[in-house]
């Protein structure tokens, strides 16, 4: 368990992507590549949120459906873009693929600009969520990819649905 | 140019074997090694051997059997064979004659003593 010192004033780049209505961002450092979903091999009897595996430069990479991961019930998603990320999973580096609708752009902001969710009256800030950021009239939820994909965080994610969080943020941002 | 004298060293304990080999090579002899009697057999194929140094207690084929084998070959009936041993028992040393061994090298040995013995035989 190592602590990364975060320079809160330095501007960092984040990859902004969308799944359905929601917008998310993950730090560029974690992202390896953004590829088109070509061939996905489904693995029978695996967890719901794992769509299958793909061959990324000779590596077996599992592809995660963030919707399912977040228990986010939504209409059929036209996902064909995969963000390949390099995450820490119990002290090992592993590759994982996130299935998303679209990668919008790469944005920059400072760590201190991220606002935390407890501000909104929620019980706690889920570990997978760094917070959210306001940008161009929309809000973007900043994800900690390591926590999102960490197997042991599964329980927490099941508890809290992204949908709820999104609603709360929306409500908060809308002037009463 | 005179050819180097060739010595076969048979000893199962690797460290000892390497010390012996290095010492002999330092005296400008050619050394071939084996870790036990069985392995050593291949050397006695008629090619020239000037001296055999072997341990007595070895797996698979011990020193006594090896010496017997070597002496059974015409080519090697009269070559000097030295046997390494920690035995100080006089009884055993007497057996050298019966076993057709040239002599015993007591383990552990002082390198200078060892050199002298070898020189005695090979010069």
């Amino acid at each position, binding site marked *: 368990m190592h602590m990364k010192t975060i320079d809160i004033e330095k501007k960092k780049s984040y990859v902004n992507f969308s799944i359905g209505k929601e917008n998310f961002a993950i730090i560029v450092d974690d992202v390896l590549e953004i590829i088109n979903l070509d*061939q996905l*091999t*489904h*693995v*029978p*009897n*695996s*967890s719901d949120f*794992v769509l299958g*595996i*793909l*061959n990324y430069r*000779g590596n*077996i990479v*599992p592809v995660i459906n963030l919707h399912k991961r977040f228990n986010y019930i939504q209409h059929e998603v036209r996902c064909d873009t995969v963000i390949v990320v390099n995450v820490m999973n*119990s*002290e*090992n580096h*592993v590759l*994982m693929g996130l299935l998303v609708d679209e990668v919008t752009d790469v944005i920059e902001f400072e760590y201190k600009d991220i606002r935390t969710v407890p501000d909104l009256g929620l019980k706690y800030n889920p570990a997978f969520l760094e917070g959210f950021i306001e940008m161009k009239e929309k809000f973007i939820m900043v994800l900690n990819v390591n926590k999102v994909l960490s*197997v042991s965080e599964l329980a927490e994610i099941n508890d809290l649905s992204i949908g709820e969080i999104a609603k709360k943020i929306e409500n908060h941002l809308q002037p009463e | 140019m005179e050819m180097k004298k060739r010595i076969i060293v048979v000893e*199962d*304990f*690797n*460290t*000892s074997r*390497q*010390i012996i080999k*290095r010492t002999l*090579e*330092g005296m400008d002899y050619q050394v071939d090694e084996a*870790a036990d009697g069985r392995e050593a057999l291949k050397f006695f194929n008629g090619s020239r051997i000037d001296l055999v140094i072997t341990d007595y*207690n*070895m*797996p*698979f084929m011990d020193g006594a059997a090896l010496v017997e084998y070597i002496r059974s070959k015409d080519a090697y*009936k*009269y*070559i*000097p064979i030295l046997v390494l041993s*920690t*035995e*100080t*028992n*006089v009884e055993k*040393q*007497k057996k*050298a*004659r019966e076993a*057709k*061994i*040239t*002599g015993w090298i007591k*383990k*552990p040995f002082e390198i*200078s003593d060892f*050199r002298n*013995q070898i020189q*005695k*035989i090979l010069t």
Partner: protein
Amino acid sequence: MDEFIESFINEARELLFQLESDLLLLENQPQDNEVTNSIFRIMHNLKGAAQMYGFDDMQYLTHEFESIFDRIRTGELKVSHDLIDDTLKGKDILLSMLDKDSPAEKDEDLVGQLKSKYSGLIDNETAGIEEKISDKPSGRAIYCILFSPEKEIFERGLNPDRAIEEAMASGKAKIMMHEKKTSWEKQKTKKICQTTWEIYLYSAFTATQIEEIFLFYDKEEYRVFQIPEDELDQNLEYLDFFRNNYGKGISAADHVKECISGLADGAEEIPVLNAGKEVDERQSQGKLSHVSGSTKEFIINVSSQKLDELMNLVSELVISGASLNAHATRLNDSRLSTLIENIDKLTKKFRKNALDLRLIPVRTLLNKFNRQIRDLSKELNKEVVLLVEGEETEIDKTVLKAIESPLMHIIRNSIGHGIEPPEERIQKGKTREGTLKIAAFYSGANVIIQIHDDGCGINLEKVKQRAIEKGYISPDQQITDQELLKLIMEPGFTTSENINLVSGRGVGMDVVRKELNAIGGSLQIDTEKDLGTSMTMKLPTTLSIIDTLMLEVNDLHVLVPLLEIEYCYKEIRENIYERNSNMLQYKNNLVPFVSLRRKFKCPLNNHKEEMVIIINKYDKKYALIVDDIIGEHQAVIKPLGGLFVNQPYFSGASILVDGNLALILDTNYLFNQSVLN
């Protein structure tokens, strides 16, 4: 000599390791001569080397053991449990003696104890009392040497001429040769010696130095006298010789006088042995590559990194070869195909050899545990019998290293918490001794290591309570046994009060799970009250390449190891399901079958026929029902990764020629499934 010391220490360690194995084996097979010999040899070698490198304590201890085991060899002493115990203790002490940094456990008494315990009279093996001829400290002396080599002296590799030469070179000498039967020259050609020499020598050498000339000769073959000290004309031995070689015409005294006359005359240069001769040691060039001293085979230590690189290259070669092959087939050029077939064969051989480099039989690990299991059982007053199955199963080097710690931990748990004390077992109607069984075998692309004890099983009630205490579950929550068992692997979860004794505090199953996950393995726990507990480790045989048959199930490509397939045939669907059970007819037998389409929940198709693959694993037969066979595929096994550890059907994946993926079937799991249905 430093590099030699290091090499000696390394080799000594390996010998001690071997010693332990041998001792444990001897305990169970006290009549085994081979093992006794091996132990004797180890002590013998260690003794010699220890003295050479100044490990005095080690020398004395090994000398003691060497004597003891020598007498066991000759049958004078019998093997006893006490002896094994003491020798094992001795082995530990010897091991600590190798550590020059840490002070060795001084057990001065051990040598004494051994002496008195295993027969008071251990032959001290003092060198035979040799007659010491007084050494004249300086000055010159006259010596008389009687030299009579045996007839077959040449057959000992000795030529008396050499000794004579050396004698002549040590001073001024007068030599008489007494040839019997034929001339010495003739004798030499016949390689027999029927000659004696009488040498009178005026030399500055000491008597010891003179004797050294005859280093390789038997004491009976030469005698060295000092004149006048030994008074030759009074000395019986000399007189004996004299009478045998000379007639009555002259008296011994006169003869001696005549021989030594003139010897000491003149101030001639007499060579003096250069006593303090410095022989220059040639500096060693380059490092001596460590060749481990196992007498059974030559073992070379290769860095893991080099092996990894080699394996990567091999894998790439295999994949490239496959592509090349596919391409060539398309081109339909027969000559090219033949050439490629050759390359294919060579590649296969190459990869087999490279693979084998990394594979080590599990046995090496299990042997290590033998001793620890024995000691632990004793310490905890449990009686445990260890059964091992499949110890020749080979695992990748790195995997083997990685499972050492978790495996040991599981074993400790079994002995510490699983197997009950003998009295309790008898009360329960069980055998006095508990059984710890470790089995290793292959399954698909995995190696399975199963540790089973027939102890009291895991107390699920306690686990549940603990889980509630720790807040993992709520008091009224419904939870299955399997889920409870999974909870055991959560951090900080230990129900034992004796955490310090056996497994250490909180260093529980969570560490085991983590360590296994790190190498892509997993752990499953099964338990039954009073019947015992089974811990099953599933390990990848990473970077293995296996020959497989590629099968089609819906749109999925599935791989099955070729070796496990006995037979394949097409069958009409109705015939398969006609029995309304999961058995089908194969060669006059009924075998269970599994339809992969159904297992994988694929939509049903309307094909009339299905493909039946008969799998034969260690004589357990069952059938896989699939859509079709696609072909053979040399699969480079890639682990699926942490997210799939709990998924039971597949043990890995393989990249196909076109870049797509195929999944490797876990044939063991499916067998269990087929039987259960």
